[in-house]
């Protein structure tokens, strides 16, 4: 099958389905007609799309944790705790790393070890192994809509099982769940597997069941310049829309500078709307999500609360539709349910106190939106050019050419020539442009900002800044200044 940005025919989709469902015994549990009927029985207030749409109308920011453990009962207990004690508006089910790599027998081993040791030996919920029934047990046991969150390059079976299992939102995309999460998998391959997921979502949509899809915004979570991650989000939104997806949440991982972060959310919304419209997808509802700082956290819990709360403030001031919440255990390990709920409550407090406030649209903010828009457009236009107008083909070639280039990505299909660093106010800029196709004015802008920092740091602009910036937040700073 060759990759182009074109809606799969129903036949092509249904043929592929047979293969997909056969890759693990629980695949047999999925009956699409029955699943659609089941989804239709889920009340509105437990549907992701409905809750997001209402939040857009009300201009409020919803809060959502990450969470997942190996065993169904424990997982339900965890989710209930997060809605009752944490006040989560939206629930997650974070999938374990074996399932993400389709290593279902390793996941099975993890389940058994977890039962034996009396504690979760998996870093998430093995959704495929627990099957449609297991999934339904989960989604039926809670009051809020539940989303699958993972990092799975080939999530076709996981999508089949969990959507049939009553989940009403599915995170990921052909780029965002490849480049940060895989080493040896081609973009061609994952863009195809994710077209399948989008086509499946479209199949439900065509039959009156709206499922939310969310590209994973933060990518590697480590100093990704807003325009780079936003460009990826726009591509995944467009690709999803072509397969029939009608409800998309585009995401962004907080970088730490207030103006840049608020601008990034505004730009993300503007660019997604603009490109969806340009390609004629006029009936897609777009919401936004801000992820609280996704890089290395401070180990101290009080300091971690500082990072969490600052991310919450930015989400509220940017009026993101939802915010993904970190926990005070972030730097150490998968959080206890108590730590997870504490992160949620701190977040809720800040979000609520800022519910009626937003960042004024002043000159500095407008200028920052403008530069992010220009950078994003430069990347996207070159990508389209490379694909001769096809965004999927263009994406594969853009990665080859280093036009799209994600810092610190494990994937060998990512060029890794671009290098970011913070400017003197902590905004993330392009230190080495690599092959990212920026015109002189953009290059100069980035260089000028980094020169300002170099002057303040009393050193040259160099990679050491990047290294210092990687450690900065966990060491209680934003900009990694040289030791005095």
């Amino acid at each position, binding site marked *: 099958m060759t990759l182009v940005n074109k809606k799969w025919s129903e036949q092509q989709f249904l043929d592929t389905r047979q293969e997909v469902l056969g890759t693990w015994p629980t695949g047999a549990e999925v009956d699409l007609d029955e699943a659609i009927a089941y989804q239709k029985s889920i009340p509105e207030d437990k549907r992701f799309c409905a809750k997001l749409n209402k939040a857009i109308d009300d201009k409020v920011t919803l809060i959502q944790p990450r969470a997942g453990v190996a065993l169904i009962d424990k997982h339900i207990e965890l989710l209930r705790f997060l809605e009752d004690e944490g006040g989560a508006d939206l629930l997650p089910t974070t999938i374990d*790393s074996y399932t993400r790599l389709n290593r279902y027998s390793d996941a099975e081993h993890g389940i058994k070890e977890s039962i034996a040791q009396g504690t979760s030996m998996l870093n998430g919920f093995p959704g495929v192994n627990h099957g449609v029934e297991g999934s339904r047990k989960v989604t039926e046991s809670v009051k809020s809509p539940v989303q699958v969150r993972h990092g799975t390059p080939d999530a076709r079976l996981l999508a089949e099982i969990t959507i049939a299992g009553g989940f009403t939102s599915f995170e990921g995309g052909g780029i965002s769940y490849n480049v940060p999460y895989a080493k040896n998998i081609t973009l061609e391959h994952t863009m195809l597997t994710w077209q399948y997921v989008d086509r499946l979502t479209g199949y439900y949509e065509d039959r009156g069941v709206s499922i939310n899809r969310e590209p994973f915004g933060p990518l590697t979570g480590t100093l990704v310049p807003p325009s780079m991650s936003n460009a990826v989000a726009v591509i995944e939104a467009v690709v999803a829309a072509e397969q029939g997806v009608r409800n998309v949440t585009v995401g962004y991982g907080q970088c730490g500078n207030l103006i840049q972060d608020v601008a990034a959310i505004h730009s993300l919304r503007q660019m997604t709307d603009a490109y969806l419209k340009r390609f004629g997808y006029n009936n897609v509802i777009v919401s936004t999500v801000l992820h609280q700082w996704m890089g290395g956290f401070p180990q101290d819990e009080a300091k971690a609360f500082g990072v969490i709360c600052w991310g919450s403030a930015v989400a509220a001031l940017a009026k993101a539709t939802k915010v993904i919440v970190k926990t005070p*255990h972030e730097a150490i390990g998968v959080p206890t349910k108590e730590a997870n709920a504490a992160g949620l409550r701190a977040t809720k407090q800040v979000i609520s106190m800022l519910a009626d406030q937003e960042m004024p649209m002043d000159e500095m903010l407008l200028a920052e939106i403008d530069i992010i828009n220009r950078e994003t457009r430069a990347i996207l236009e070159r990508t389209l050019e490379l694909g001769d107008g096809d965004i999927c083909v263009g994406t594969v070639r853009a990665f080859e050419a280093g036009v799209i280039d994600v810092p610190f990505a494990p994937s060998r299909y990512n060029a890794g020539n671009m290098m970011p660093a913070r400017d003197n106010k902590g905004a993330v800029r392009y230190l080495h442009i690599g092959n990212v196709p920026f015109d002189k004015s953009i290059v100069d802008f980035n260089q000028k900002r980094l020169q300002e920092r170099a002057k303040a740091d009393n050193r040259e602009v160099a990679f050491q800044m990047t290294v210092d910036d990687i450690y900065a937040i966990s060491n209680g700073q934003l900009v990694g200044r040289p030791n005095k």
Partner: protein
Amino acid sequence: MDKKTLVIGVIGADVHAVGIQILNFAFQEAGFNVVNLGVMVTQEEYIEAAIEAKADAIVVSSLYGHGELDCQGLREKCDEAGLKDILLYVGGNIVVGKQDLTEVEKRFRAMGFDRVFGPGTPPETTIEYLKKDLGVA
């Protein structure tokens, strides 16, 4: 040939790519030969690389929580492959969740690791121990 050789990498299905890039950089700066296997490294890959490079130590990084499952049997496989007494380090966020570190250390030592490091150990600390254990001045 005074330089000691390290094989480093992130074990299992783990894709956390930032720390290992920094360790690679820091170990080289500190005067080691480094064979960096990157992320998603199998036990076999560590061993093959160690044999090929005549390595003095294998530095296993694990961040994602499955470290305990992934590391089981590595020492035995080293022994079988003839890498008798090769120095074995493990570090990162090596277990699921916030656990008592001395307990965790005990379990990994029982698996045959010579040293076990907790979350966020700075490169300088690791380098100090490596120099000591490998007899580098």
